[in-house]
């Protein structure tokens, strides 16, 4: 496993460095339109070809990485922390607290949040910079994405509450707050890691889907999500395998994250 972890570190480092070196690696930039070479295949000048309006795909992948690879994990972390706090605390405290928290969670799981996002877009000015727009989008995703994990965490924390080692600790006079952080939280890690890992690609894809509401990255800025959305034109993709590069890159990154997380998991265990 050690070798795999090292490899994961290398992959993440290479992807991250390449995205920050985008200015050098792809000097044309993500917005430049080569209007005479639209929809071109890979060539020496355009390693991954060009998109429908002649923009260099390689540059777009690199610049898209910058946004998605920084913001999606940040949003995933936010949602994981919220899940830990809400689900973990509710389960740990039990009783009415747990019931109330879970009722709220169930409501959160059922409501049509699409309309909240539409309202959020309406509250933002139209001339907002693409970066602010994408930041707001990931923030909203982070704030809304905690529910699934919270429900599982509540159950986990609930069973821990009655576990022997927690009872013993409580009998030994360890205060409740300390008990929660020292004894309960570490045991929630399997669920927290799962939530964090799942959230990264889910948020990256959701960001692109929110494009239909005017949220997410605005043109001409790229994101992995918007590049992956191209895959929806499957009918025309048969003979253009290079369009799968963003997907392969995302899978690589997501698996690298999992390899790194699983190491911590073992330590925690």
């Amino acid at each position, binding site marked *: 496993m050690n070798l795999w972890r090292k490899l994961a570190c290398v992959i993440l480092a290479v992807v991250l460095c390449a995205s920050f070196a985008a200015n050098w690696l792809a000097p044309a930039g993500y*917005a430049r*339109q080569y*209007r005479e070479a*639209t929809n071109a295949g890979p060539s020496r000048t355009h390693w991954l070809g060009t998109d*429908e*309006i*002649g923009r260099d795909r390689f540059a777009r992948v690199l610049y898209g990485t910058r946004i998605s690879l920084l913001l999606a994990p940040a949003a995933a972390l936010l949602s994981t922390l919220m899940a830990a706090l809400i689900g973990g605390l509710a389960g740990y405290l039990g009783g009415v607290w747990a019931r109330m928290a879970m009722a709220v969670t169930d409501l959160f799981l059922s409501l049509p949040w699409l309309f909240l996002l*539409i309202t959020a*877009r*309406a509250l933002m000015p*139209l*001339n*907002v*910079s*693409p970066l602010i727009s994408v930041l707001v989008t990931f923030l909203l995703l982070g704030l809304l994405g905690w529910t699934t994990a919270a429900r599982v965490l509540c159950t986990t924390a609930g069973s821990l509450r009655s576990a022997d080692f927690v009872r013993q600790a409580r009998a030994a006079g360890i205060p409740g707050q300390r008990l929660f952080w020292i004894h309960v939280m570490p045991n929630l890690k399997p669920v927290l890691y799962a939530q964090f890992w799942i959230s990264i690609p889910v948020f990256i894809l959701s960001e692109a889907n929110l*494009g*239909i*509401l*005017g949220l997410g990255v*605005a*043109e*001409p800025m790229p994101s992995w999500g918007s590049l992956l959305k191209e895959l*929806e*034109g*499957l*009918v*025309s993709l048969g003979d253009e395998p290079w369009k799968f590069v963003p997907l392969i890159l995302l899978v690589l990154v997501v698996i690298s994250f999992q390899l790194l997380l699983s190491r911590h998991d073992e330590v925690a265990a």
Partner: protein
Amino acid sequence: MSGRHKMRGQMSKTCWKSIAVGVICVASLSAHVAAQAGGELKFCLRMEPKTFDPLKVEDEASAAIRYLTGGVLVRVNRQTQELEPELAQSWNISKDGRQITFRLRSGISFSDGTPFAAEDVAYTVQQLMDPALHSATGDAFRSGTGNVESKVISPTQISITFPAPVAGLDRLFDQVAILSERSPKKETAVLGPFIVADYKPGATVLLKRNPNYWKTDGQGRKLPYLDSIRLDIQPNRDVEMLRFKRGELDLINSLDSEYFDKLAATSPQLVHDAGPSLDSEQLWFNEVAKAPIPRYKKNWFRSANFRRAISEAINREDLSRIVFHGHAQPALGPFSPANKFWFNSNLQPQTYSPDAALKALQTDGFRLENGVLKDKDRNEVVFSIVTNAGSKPRERMAVLIQDDLQKIGIHVNVVTLDFPSLIERMTQSFDYEAIILGLTNVDLDPNGEMNVWLSSSENHQWNPQQKVPETSWEAEIDRLMRAQAASTDPRRRKEAFDRVQEIVAEEQPFIFLINKNALSAVSTAVHGAAPVILSPQTFWNADRLTVAAK
């Protein structure tokens, strides 16, 4: 000039052409028909039909079903653009343009066997003009206040009198499917070639041959040839294309240019480009006085010079070539050259010249500083272009325009919104700066666009509901549009609308971008198809199509 004379006059110009087309169609058809009649035609509706009541039709899907099931008094031939007799053998418009008299065919029955007579026409008109119905088809006839009166002269003759002259009156009846007054089945009893046999919401509409359809082909065979038409409700274009390629669908209407090229590369015999359609795509700026946008921006948008400069800085050739893969033409004005009679052929194409655009802006006090355009008060020229999400061509056009305008120092933010949010900004809050949308022209007659051009209208998008025209050119357009609507003389109407087109080209309240070509795909199993630019492109002659067994 009476309507009947007008029809004859126009027919003479294209008479030979239609006869030739007709002969070719009949000749090619008869061979197939002899071998194979019947079959089921299958294609997609892109949305759920909102109604099966022909009088309440408002959406494309319902309009398609109305076209296939409804019997009309007169029909605009989608190929020749001429008006042709259907249930009415002939018709006559009074000199004042207020009254139309139809002489109807006899011996025709509705699909349920109820006989058709002049009373049914009177009933249909009465239902259609009910003010509580709020039907788009009915509103097209409302030129003045007052009641519409129908007088049944005999079972085969009826005259309908309107309170004020209605320009292009006879052509409007192309949209009016006749209902039965006496049939217990009400609107499900039809006079068209097909009847609605089954409807599974969200999935399919099944149409079956109307056994009582009155038309026959040249050899006396009863029409329609097809047994049935299966309409699958499928909004996704990718899925539609997949299913067409698999042979599960026979037709695709309004094919995307991207798919057209992909399909043409492998099976050129399946795709049809009928040339520029009537539909246009345009950009416009918000000129509403009370709009919640900064005053200096309103000043830019209300300046014709600014609008002309933006128009000149947009590379329409690239829009056509890149976004539509060459299957579009730079637009010149509200009507495309496809509208043979009403298009003003004196309009000059908009030249593309960023330098000239910049010079024009400089006369308004704009200055280019370090690559950034600033107005005379040193405000940076930044604005947003909104378009509806999900329309790839519009999103791509917006990105190309963003890049074009960057060349003259203008920073554009492209925003895509879901349609209801966009409509709210456009019609209620007026909280937007520029919009790219399309205008779907179903009508050939400029009267169909009355509510777009009148400054008092709700659909005068750049500055709607003006109490009095805010500019002299809008006042002039109002006057010309009213004048053409009040006249029954086609020549005078044409002159007035030609002038409207010139004013629009000069003032650019709508910056017309392109006219899309009418692209379609037809399976080789379908015989008799001749896709045209007018809606419904591929199945306008559905009663004469046949589908070979696969």
